[in-house]
């Protein structure tokens, strides 16, 4: 019976619902007062009007743009066939199930969403603290631990993020970054079913973080029925807070673009982490002009 239901679900996902000429998706309302302020700010800092060189604002990253540091557009992807399959599968799953659920979640009062988001963020702090220690970032580890203690008590079990208000900013990290800190390359690109673009190391990282959380088993939330009940809420909250939509570009080249951006974002994160843990003098010389 269960198998039949799963097959029916798979058929629905893969077939789409193309019979209706029109589908209407109710999206969460936009908040233009805030967004537009940001957009206007961005427009007024537009490069065509501003004499400020963007590289001055971005400082340290300029070094990464030196000609020699430019990575090839080609991205290591030995499992491309499988990855492309799951990219398509995820896109359909996203449209049929994940996004509608996340959209409905976003229609809840903002305070409820914030509570859920803070709650799961707080649960992740001990894992972050342990990873900070493994990355030799003791100060950050203490901060995460402090956040956990403050938010679990004064913040009513993590529903309120009091710690940020007393200048203990959140800086989540995970086992994947820890592996990167000790020199493990991100490895091949990997599209994980349902969760999306990733790398092999990120996949291991996810398992590692989950194993840690399971071992810590805070408030007995990770075992038995409670674990099963909380996981979907956590994933929904994460989806609702991820600004990504499959094939929003409408382009058949999207797979390549996303792959490049994802893997290189991870490489840049590794660079940044290395720079933080091993202080070096950053060469602020301007990147080579492209005309030369």
């Amino acid at each position, binding site marked *: 019976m269960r198998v039949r239901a799963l097959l029916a679900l798979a058929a629905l996902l893969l077939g789409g619902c*193309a019979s*209706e*000429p*029109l*589908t*209407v*998706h*109710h*999206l*969460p*309302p*936009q908040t*233009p007062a805030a*967004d*537009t302020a940001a*957009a206007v700010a*961005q*427009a*007024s800092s*537009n*490069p*065509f*009007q501003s004499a400020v*060189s*963007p*590289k001055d604002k971005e400082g340290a990253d300029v070094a*990464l*743009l030196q000609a020699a540091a*430019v*990575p090839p*557009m*080609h991205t290591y992807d030995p499992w*491309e*066939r499988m990855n492309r399959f799951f990219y*398509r599968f995820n*896109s359909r799953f996203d449209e049929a199930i994940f996004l509608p659920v996340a959209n409905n979640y976003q229609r809840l009062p903002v305070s409820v969403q914030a509570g859920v988001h803070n709650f799961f963020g707080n649960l992740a702090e001990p894992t972050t603290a342990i990873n900070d220690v493994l990355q030799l970032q003791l100060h950050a580890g203490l901060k995460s631990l402090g956040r956990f203690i403050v938010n679990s008590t004064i913040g009513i079990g993590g529903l309120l993020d009091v710690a940020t208000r007393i200048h203990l900013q959140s800086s989540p990290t995970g086992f994947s970054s820890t592996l990167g800190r000790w020199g493990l390359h991100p490895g091949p690109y990997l599209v994980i079913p349902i969760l999306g*673009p990733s790398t092999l190391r990120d996949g291991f990282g996810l398992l590692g973080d989950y194993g840690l959380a399971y071992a810590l088993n805070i408030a007995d939330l990770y075992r038995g029925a409670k674990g099963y009940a909380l996981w979907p809420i956590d994933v929904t909250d994460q989806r609702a807070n*991820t*600004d*990504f939509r499959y*094939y*929003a*570009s*409408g*382009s*058949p*080249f999207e797979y*390549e*673009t996303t792959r*490049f*951006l*994802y893997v*290189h*974002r991870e*490489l*840049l994160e590794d660079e940044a982490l290395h720079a933080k843990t091993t202080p070096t003098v950053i060469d602020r010389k*301007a*990147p080579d002009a*492209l*005309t030369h």
Partner: protein
Amino acid sequence: MPETVPLLELDLSLPWARPVPAIYWFDRRLRAWFSAQPGAAPLAIVIAGTGGDGNTSKLATLRAVLYGAGYHVLTVPSPTFPGFIVSASSTGVAGDLKQDSQDLYAALQMLVAHLPRGTRISEVDVLGYSLGAAHAAVIKSLDDVEHKLKIKRAILINPPVSLFSSIGRLDELFTLSIGSGDSGVEQLYKRLYTRLANLYRRSNKVTLDETDLYSAASAVLTSDADFSAVIALSFRLSLVDVFYAGDLYAGTGIVVDPKHPPAVGDSLEHIGVVLRGKTFADYFSTVFAPYYLAHRPGSTPASLLADNRLDIIADTLEHNPDYYAMTNDDDPILNSDDLAWLRAKFGARIVVYDHGGHLGNLGERQQVTDLLEMLAGLWKRGT
């Protein structure tokens, strides 16, 4: 500015859509976004610029402004957006001002007919930015004859005057600042995408929006490079998709073998490398012109170029008081002749700001005030 703007996404199958090539399976439906006022209200239709979908950040800015001023707002993709080319174009070869506008006009009629029940529309106006401005003008001129939507006013925000000479100029700018060799271009794209990856690292998002692109590109091109090249670059990125779709649909065989088109799941990386080096001139001479010369009897390359100027509706623009335009003195897609032409045609119905480049001042207070007054038919020069 309103606190919140309700938003619906409309995914529509058009009955006249051409067979969808397998690798475009995700573009089967035309996607548009709609924000409804509770009661009767005028409808503002807003058309995206080159390569933009119906929900770009510029459209979001305009949506907020227009919704706040009491309009229903329908935002639609550019006819050069791959999703539009696949779901709504009658040719698959984008870039012809009149043909693209006709296709979009037909799609708009379907969209307006399918707006949620209970939407009460008191008047229809059409706006567009960049290339979308040219489409807005031509669509209103079509509607002036056919009266299918009864469009009252058209507002052109930073329009081009001659599509191919604008982009020809962009090709030139691109070559000047990047160099023309294939390796130079590929090197630039690598840098650009690395910069984008860096932006995502900061903002924890993974969307590719023109605003991100501009900020990434402006960093890559370094401060002393001509910033117009950034605009050129963003157009060139849109060209990759337009070129690919055009070549596939027209069967011109430049990068897609018409006998063996790529299947779902095939890698397109090698094609992407070739396409990133292509110019607008390449697109015109190897895909666009061959297709239209074969399908439009009596046309010549010169006539195709002429058909892609706002000239084709010059009389209407000059004499019909319901067309308005706004642009900037330093917009890189216009030369001084183009600007003079716009001033001559629009007369008292154009505002030209001193600064702002190409769309740099969209959403600024003065621009918004002028825009809303134009839409309401209240705008007077210099007030």
